Each structure stands twice: as C-alpha cells, then as structure tokens.
C-alpha cells in the first residue's frame, strides 16, 4: 500500500538527545524520520537561536541534510517519508495541518550544493520571487534587486550586466546569485546544504564571508563536510552520526574540547 505524501505528526516523545540554548527561533522536538522502513533520524531535539549560524556536521548518511530539509518541509516531496515529532519556528509547528508550505518556504529559504540559477538574466533571477510575491513596480524591483545583490556581495561584479544571462556567471557568482535570490523575499531562516563544496578556495572564502555578513539579518543553518569551514563560520555546531544527534554546542567547544568521544574521533578525522 502506498504511503501518504503528507508527513504524519504523532505525539511528541521524550527526546533521546536534547540540546537547548537561549531564545531559540527554531525548536526541533523529538524529530524522527523514516524513509519507508528505514529510520534516518532518531528522536532529535535541539533549539537553534535567532541570527546565529548553526552548522550540521557528520559523516555521509548521518542525517544532517535530511534534518536540514525538514526545516522547510522539503522532505514532503519524497515518497514514503514519515516524520514524527514537531518543528516549531517562531513558536508555530511547521508540520501542523493548517500550515501553508509555500508560505513556510518563503520564511525559510534554501541554497543548494550546486548553484541552480534560472536560465534567465541576473536581474530576472532575483526579480522572479519578488514578482511572485506581489512586487510589480519596476522602481521597487530595481531597488530591492540592488539591495539583494549588494547584500550578497555581487553587485559590483554584475551591476553593468544585470540583463545578461545568469548562466554566464562563474560558479561562485552563481551561488551568490542564488543567495541573493533566497534573501530577496526576506526570509527569517536560510538553509544551506554544502553551499561551497563545488567552489574553488577563493569563491569559498567569499561565500563564507558572505554568510558571516548575512547572520546580522538572518538565522542560518548550514550543512557542511568541511569542518574547518564549520569552525570558521558557525557559532553553534551539531554533530550527527547514523541519524542521531551526538553533540550540540558552541562551535569553539566542539572543535577544541568535545564532550563525546564520537565527536572527538570525527573532528580528529579518525572516521567519516
């Protein structure tokens, strides 16, 4: 029998691993996720603070991207997924039956590993979401697009060719354009799934500096395989292993004095 595409919410269980910090914007409460019979996330609870960069780290298959995708219900698009527990953003359960998923994804934007600009001009890439959300006046669009391109540190490089194809940009520029596109509609949260893993060191450094600039305005959750990157850009780090949250805390602590042996072994490169 086919499983429903809509995740089922079941009553919250006692979390196996709990990590709480002050004034959370995002509260992940006893989340478990199954792909069919396979349990990909096991009873995960943690709170993510507002205007803070949180890094999810862990070996491949540990569930970090799966959890990231739970934060804007991207997993709804996958067959046979069942999610137990709750995720609250600003105190509201995003898995409640009355939640408008389109509206949720406006509040929680996403940047993917591979830059994916629309096959349109640089201008239109940023304008697209704005028009979709009702901004029609050209002067307003021009102003907002410039703001977003400046905020994503791309303006100086593209201001003279805004109507050229976005596909002509370098990989790093395309990724910054995707960030500009994501922030155009003023989300509260930006999810980033290995946003710099396909970029060269210079482009990576620019994305990292951009993330640190953006956290003044946005709450950022980033999945990365690069632990030095996590150390450079994040305030909080969560380490996952085989679907479990092993440790969550200040990045400086995780990378200098982790509490759990599994974290120590992973950040020291002993496995993963």
């Amino acid at each position, binding site marked *: 029998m086919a499983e429903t595409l809509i995740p089922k919410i079941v009553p919250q269980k006692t979390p196996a691993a709990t990590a709480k910090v002050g004034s959370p914007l995002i509260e992940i409460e006893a989340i478990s996720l199954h792909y069919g019979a396979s349990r990909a996330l096991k009873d995960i609870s943690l709170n993510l603070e507002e205007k803070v960069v949180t890094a999810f780290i862990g070996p491949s298959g540990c569930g970090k991207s799966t959890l990231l995708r739970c934060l804007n219900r991207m997993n709804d698009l996958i067959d046979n997924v069942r999610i137990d527990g709750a995720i609250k953003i600003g105190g509201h359960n995003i898995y409640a039956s009355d939640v408008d998923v389109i509206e949720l994804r406006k509040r929680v934007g996403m940047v993917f590993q591979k830059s994916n600009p629309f096959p349109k001009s640089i201008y239109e890439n940023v304008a697209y979401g704005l028009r979709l959300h009702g901004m029609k006046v050209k002067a307003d669009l021009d102003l907002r697009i410039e703001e977003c391109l400046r905020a994503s*540190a791309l303006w100086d490089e593209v201001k003279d060719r805004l109507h050229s194809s976005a596909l002509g940009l370098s990989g790093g520029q395309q990724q910054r354009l995707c960030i500009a596109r994501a922030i155009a509609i003023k989300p509260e949260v930006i999810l980033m799934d290995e946003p710099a893993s396909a970029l060269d060191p210079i482009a990576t450094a620019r994305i990292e*500096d951009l993330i*640190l*600039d953006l956290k003044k305005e946005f709450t950022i959750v980033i999945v990365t395989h690069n632990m*030095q990157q996590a150390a*450079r850009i994040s305030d909080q780090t969560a380490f996952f292993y085989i679907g479990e949250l092993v440790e969550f805390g200040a990045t*400086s602590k995780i*990378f*200098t004095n982790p509490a759990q042996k599994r974290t120590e072994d992973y950040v020291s490169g002993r496995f993963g």
Partner: protein
Amino acid sequence: MENHFEIGIENLRQKLLVMASHTEKAVNDAVQALTQRDHDLALRVKEEDDVIDKCEVEIDDLAILLLTKAPLATNLRLVTVAMKISQDLERIGDEASKIAKRARDLTQEPPVKLTLDLTRMARLALEMLKTALDAFVNRDPAAARLIIPRDKEVDAMNKQIHNALVQHMVDNPDTISRCLHWIVAAKSLERIADHATNIAEDVVYLCEAQDIRHTGIKNSAASNP
C-alpha cells in the same frame, strides 16, 4: 564584504601589541625602580605583570580558536608565532617582577658601594626587546637578525657583573644579602635578552618561514632563489 578571518588575525596581532606594550613598560619600570631606588614604582610592576598574564591567556584562547579555522601560510605562522611570543612576553613580565621585588628589598637597605654597569646592561636588554617587537610590527626580519648576536654582549655583561659582585661579597661579607639581590636582578636582565632573542627568531620565522634556532645561520638572510 568583510574578510572575517583576516579580522580575527588582526585582532590577534593587536592583542599581542597591547601585551608587548605592557611588557616593555614593566621592564622599564622595574629597571627604573632598581636603579633609582623607587619603592612605589617597584610595587606597581606587579600590577603590570597581572595584566600581562591575562593577555597571555586571551592570546592563547584566540590563537586556538583561529587554529580550528585552519589558517595557512603566513596566517598559520602568525598564529603559532603569536602563541610563542606571548609566552616569551609573559616570561619577560615575570623577570620584570623579579627585578622589581629585588628593587623593593634593596630600598630597605643601604646602597652597595660598588660601581656596576647594570644600567648599560639594562639599556641593551631593553633595546633588544624593543627592536624585536618593532621587527614584529614592521615584519622586518633583517632588523630581527641584527639583534640576535647582541645577546652574547648581554651574557658577557652579566658574567662581568656577577664576578664583580662575588668578589665584593668575598671582600665585604656584610653586603652578601644585598649583592645577591643585584645578582638576581642582573640574571633577570640576561633572561630578558634571551627572550628578546627568541622573539627575534620568531619574527624571522614569521617573515621568511625559516627556523633559525640552533642552526648557526642567524645572521644570514633568507636564501630564496
């Protein structure tokens, strides 16, 4: 867009400069307290040393944090050198405290009637320290290399002062306790020059990526083709 990592590196450099300025002041005050028999000034050196100790802890904390971010090349050398220089500065602060303590005790007793060239020795040790720190600030390995051989001059002065004081104690046993204070103070100045030499060697490593410790090539310039 800000370069956040470079901001961290600059922050580390600034903290080291603040620590260096406290250290220089501590040594200057200690020497002045000793040579001018200034009891109050000797007491104030301890306060300066407490600040220096705090600086060392802060610099190490920041350096460890920066190391987790995987600095490379010059930045990697700067972070490791900063940790070493801060340790040398902390030790210099300790030596300044020792001198100040001896200065404080000596003010309670009559002066020793012996002409010592301690002022010249102190001037040279301080000059070495200042030059080493300036070389760090200006990233000037040539200036750093120039002061390294001067450590031997300080060693020779210390030996000379030590011998003079030993002879004085033999001839005037009633001055033994006072002469021992001077011996300890001279030894501390000699140690300060050693630490200044370490800092100079670290500056060469920072600028040229060449470790000149224990190599006998301290005066040669980097031999990059």
